[in-house]
């Protein structure tokens, strides 16, 4: 089963990373990043039908709202992953920077939605 393989991979990666951390911290960091990437690649196959379903639903109406939400979710997950990876490497400033970049990009994605809301409010009041 997929979840058991993912769990085993996560445990093995963690143990190897811990064993290398004392002597070779750089390699331990690279191993933890590679392990995380492998976990995400493993679940990517499961995401494809879900993304296809979301696209079909977005096509049924309210495209802008649903697309914006999905994009912001993607930005949030990517920024979270980058920030956590930086924290693993002990780089707090880089983690904060990654989170800030993620928030700015999420805001940029939400701006058209905000504009649509303001336009709808104005048209209703006129």
């Amino acid at each position: 089963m997929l979840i058991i393989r993912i769990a085993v991979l996560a445990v093995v990666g963690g143990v190897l990373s811990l064993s290398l951390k004392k002597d070779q911290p750089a390699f331990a960091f690279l191993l933890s990043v590679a392990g995380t990437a492998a976990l995400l690649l493993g679940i990517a196959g499961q995401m494809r039908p879900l993304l296809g379903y979301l696209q079909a639903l977005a096509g049924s109406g309210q495209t802008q709202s649903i697309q914006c939400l999905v994009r912001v979710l993607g930005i949030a997950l990517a920024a979270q992953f980058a920030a956590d990876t930086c924290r693993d490497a002990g780089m707090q400033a880089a983690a904060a920077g990654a989170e800030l970049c993620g928030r700015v990009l999420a805001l940029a994605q939400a701006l058209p939605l905000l504009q649509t809301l303001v336009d709808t409010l104005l048209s209703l009041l006129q």
Partner: protein
Amino acid sequence: MPFSADAGGWQLWPLLTWLAGLAAQGGGGPLRFAGQTLLYLLLAGTAGLLCTGPAWKKCLDAVAVLGFGVLCLGAMADLVNRVGDAAQQCQTYLAAFVPVFSGVLALGGQASGAAAYGGLFFAVSGFLAMGIERVLLPVMRIYFCFSVSASVWGDSAAAEAAGLFGRCLNWLLRGCGALFGIVLGLQNVLAGLADNAAVRMGGTALAGAIPLVGDAAAAALSGAAAAVHLLKGGLALALVVTLCTAFLPVFLRCALYYLAFSVSAIAAAGCGQRQCAGICRLLAEGARLCASILTLYFFMVFLSTALLLITGNGGM
């Protein structure tokens, strides 16, 4: 309408088909809207679950409430326009109907009723239609905008203020309904009493003043009044059917939107979308207020016509 205003010719199946057609006109939009909102809330809830950080969850909630506000405001703008159109359509129909009905009332011996219907009732209905278009519906638009803005802002005080706004509108509509009901009901009863007395006096005068044929003349007067009363009933029925055609789909739409928002409020609360649940509660109240506006106008017109029909009996 697929059938005539003569109730004697109605059959059950065409009547049911007509009612189903009216229901379909009003029901399609709100049901689609309910599906869209539930889907959107499910998606927003799932997105919230996938994000573990509290800061990112807040960010996602903010985007979700923006999108939900856009979705709901579009639907409410459409509803408000339909309510205004229904009232205007009815008023346009009354402009043609009232002179005809007043003429029939006068012909049937209800001169005071005809004057009341053609004068006071038409003026009041025109005033109410104008009040709905110029005052109530703009206020409803402001209420919808304020509700969505308050919920997007997320401050509990603003949401409470929007709730208070809704309650004030509720009390205002109840007051208007009570006032119009009292004024029109009283006017119709008094006009009916005056007309009944006048026709009875006319019959008595005929029977007493004209020998031999006076009784026959009085009976003929009653017979003619009865025939006109039947015509009056047919016209009033035509009005009621026309009102139903104009109001029923919009009223059903308001009721379905109320249900859709109520269910969405529960779904939003379940998905952890507190602000979206606030939007749903406030807009459900708004849909209920739109239905109240329609009900006020419909029953004002219906009650006035029905009271004239019931209280004026042409001396029978």
